[in-house]
């Protein structure tokens, strides 16, 4: 079951049959590159208060800064260059989104696999815990967690992990239940392989496809969730805005015609989520056996 180069190329070939999905992939790669190389691409470090000047606040796109560069997308209420703020904000949004989705993936998957493997009453108790978690509205529990723990970048990640892990657990358990009946698991058992080995070496690789699909979708969800929390003022610190906070900053200015403070971060968020979702959708079509049959 190990992925080798030829199967990856085959996967890519199948993937590229959908032009929309290719657009999504290109978008995702561009967004990732923009985030990674933000310090090189930005004319200004928007988090360095020394480089900001409120005398340059709310300039429309095209104005020239004291420092010599041009505000290509205008500046916000603090005199931040919007382009720089979006690139840096994209970084925070992606780090928080990918980081929390990955953590939730690891924890949720192990939880689900273990539950399925142990079975019996333990499984029931573990899965009822998952049900309990999933019955709370996502935003509500995230707000509650942040209100209790105080806000910081780390706590936002933690809050998202706490509200998202259950989805992985449920998917992992479902996949594992059907795999557990297969002969290779029985073979591994009869070879007296350790429990941990069976879960990690045998079960996990065979349950991974639906989980990878889920992960791609959940990254986009986590980014949206972070943006929502920041928009509500519970996310990152106000001097280091993520995309959601940038949108929120510009929200009050919308009626007065200062459209660029909200609009451009909004477009950036839209492109990011849309691209990742396109990729996720295509992966689901290829990897999910039920979808592939259609």
């Amino acid at each position, binding site marked *: 079951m190990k992925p080798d180069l030829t199967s990856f190329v085959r996967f890519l070939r199948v993937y590229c049959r959908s032009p929309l999905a290719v657009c999504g992939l290109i978008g995702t790669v561009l967004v990732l590159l923009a985030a990674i190389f933000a310090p090189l691409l930005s004319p200004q470090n928007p988090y360095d208060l*020394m480089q900001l000047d*409120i*005398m340059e606040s709310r300039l429309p796109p095209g104005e020239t800064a004291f420092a010599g560069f041009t505000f290509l997308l205008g500046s916000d209420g603090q005199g931040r260059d919007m382009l720089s703020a979006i690139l840096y904000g994209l970084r925070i949004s992606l780090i928080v989104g990918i980081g929390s989705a990955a953590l939730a993936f690891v924890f949720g998957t192990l939880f689900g696999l273990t539950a399925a493997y142990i079975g019996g009453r333990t499984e029931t108790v573990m899965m009822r815990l998952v049900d309990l978690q999933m019955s709370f509205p996502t935003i509500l529990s995230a707000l509650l967690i942040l209100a209790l723990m105080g806000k910081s970048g780390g706590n936002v990640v933690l809050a998202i992990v706490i509200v998202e892990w259950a989805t992985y657990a449920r998917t992992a358990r479902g996949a594992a239940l059907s795999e557990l009946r297969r002969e290779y698991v029985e073979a591994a058992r009869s070879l007296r392989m350790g429990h941990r080995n069976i879960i990690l070496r045998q079960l996990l690789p065979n349950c991974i496809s639906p989980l990878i699909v889920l992960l791609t979708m959940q990254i986009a969800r986590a980014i949206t969730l972070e943006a929502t929390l920041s928009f509500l*003022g519970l996310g990152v610190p106000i001097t280091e805005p993520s995309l959601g906070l940038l949108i929120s900053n510009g929200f009050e200015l919308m009626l*007065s015609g200062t459209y660029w403070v909200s609009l451009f971060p909004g477009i950036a968020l839209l492109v990011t989520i849309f691209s990742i979702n396109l990729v996720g959708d295509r992966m689901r079509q290829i990897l999910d056996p039920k979808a592939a049959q259609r």
Partner: protein
Amino acid sequence: MKLRPILLSALCAAALAMPVNAEDLMIGVGGTATSIDPHFYNASPNNSIAMQIFDRLTERDASGQLLPGLAERWEAVGELQWRFLLRPDIKWHDGEAFTADDVVFTFDRARDVPNSPGGFGGFLRAVASVEAADDATVLITTKAPAPNLPGDLANIAIVSRHAGEGADTSDYNSGKAAIGTGAFRFKEFRQGDQITLERNPDWWGHDVAWDTVTYRVISSAGGRTTAMLAGDVDIIDTPAAADLERLRSTAGISVDSTPGLRVIYLVGSPLTGAQMQFIRGPNGEDLSENPLADVRVRKALSIALNRQAIVDRIMEGTATASGQWLPEGAFSYSPDIAVPEQDAEAAKALLAEAGYPDGFRLTVHVPNDRYPNAPAVVQAVAQMWTRIGVQTTVESLPWITYSAKMSEFAIKLLGLGNATFDASSMLINVLGTADKERGLGASNDSGYSNPKLDEMTAAALSIYDDAQREQALIAAVKLALEDGAILPLYQQTNTWAMREGLTYAPRIDERTLAKDIMVK
């Protein structure tokens, strides 16, 4: 057609049944009145409502001038007594007669309302006893000379003994005890949503234009502007600075404003307890002393700020930059105290002199849901402080968390409404050394203490001669500012937007009073 006469008579009947000039007023307000009980919480939204259902012995007009209220006249009887002569023939909303005994009852009640988050006891600080000499005369004995008493009493709503005896806050909220003498009667209170009042035809004051008044709570500034533009409301308070241009340029809407009494200021703590987690050395190390305890550091932080730029760029002209806590024209405002000029070089020199040539790290706290644009203002402050070497981090919190933790912060942004219309509420409540016995420092959560200032404040407030008292207060203000006790930033401008055809004299104390909203 046989129907016609029937229709006509029905129309006539309808016309007769309706008052000839049935006028309804819809007001969009940002702040939520938390109770109808006029002694429950001393906050502008609550007072706006209380000022219309109830009256006070003395009243303030839009610019803060003292006027007769339920008391027609008042006079000092010796150093320690005031005599208030009540207006005759005043009726409560339920028809009972208003007497001096109701005032006695009010003074007992207002001092201490259970569960009050911030009551009116401070205004009655000086009162030793109250008695009804006859039905129309109230005698108030004070503990010490109290020349400010008539002004302080403009904050105490007079409630009736017959409806208020034994009633608690919930009885006022339900309307059972909300029997006043004011321009409007209580009709309905839905907390956080809306309050409805109806005209009191027997009110003793000026003509009121409205039969029914509804206060609708629209807490987001954008929401208020949208409601105004859509014509859902007739008047709104505190529109966002960014929306003013749009409102002014819209046909059928006019905007009016006045410099307000509320000052926004930064206050640092000289203490070395929990504060030290928010003050670190230039590389994040522990500091053994609190730099903010040094007056040179406080001065450096003050002159690092460009107040005019903050007012122009962030408040967009909805505030007036200031170096003191009262607006121009107020009692005990001093024209000699200029707005501090920004001077980053001098600020750095002061820091070096105080022993911090490399600056330090500072976290400044700001509430994100209380004062307009405050988080943006503090970010600008952080820019300016970082430029002189004080690496500043901004932490913004909702008011409910903020107010609970306030005393732990190193430096924070706050506002004060100057409810006494002179320098004394800041001097007594915020800057006075915290001391319950002496009624000082009720809101002093920074730990600031200056015995000399306390002495000057007490001395100033016992002077009966207005001109002399003003000079003494100004001297105390100057001492506090030279000591950098607080760093005043600006006074907020109070703004209202209303539909064409209405006029409202903008109030210095930010209250929105339907009784004073007139039709042109």
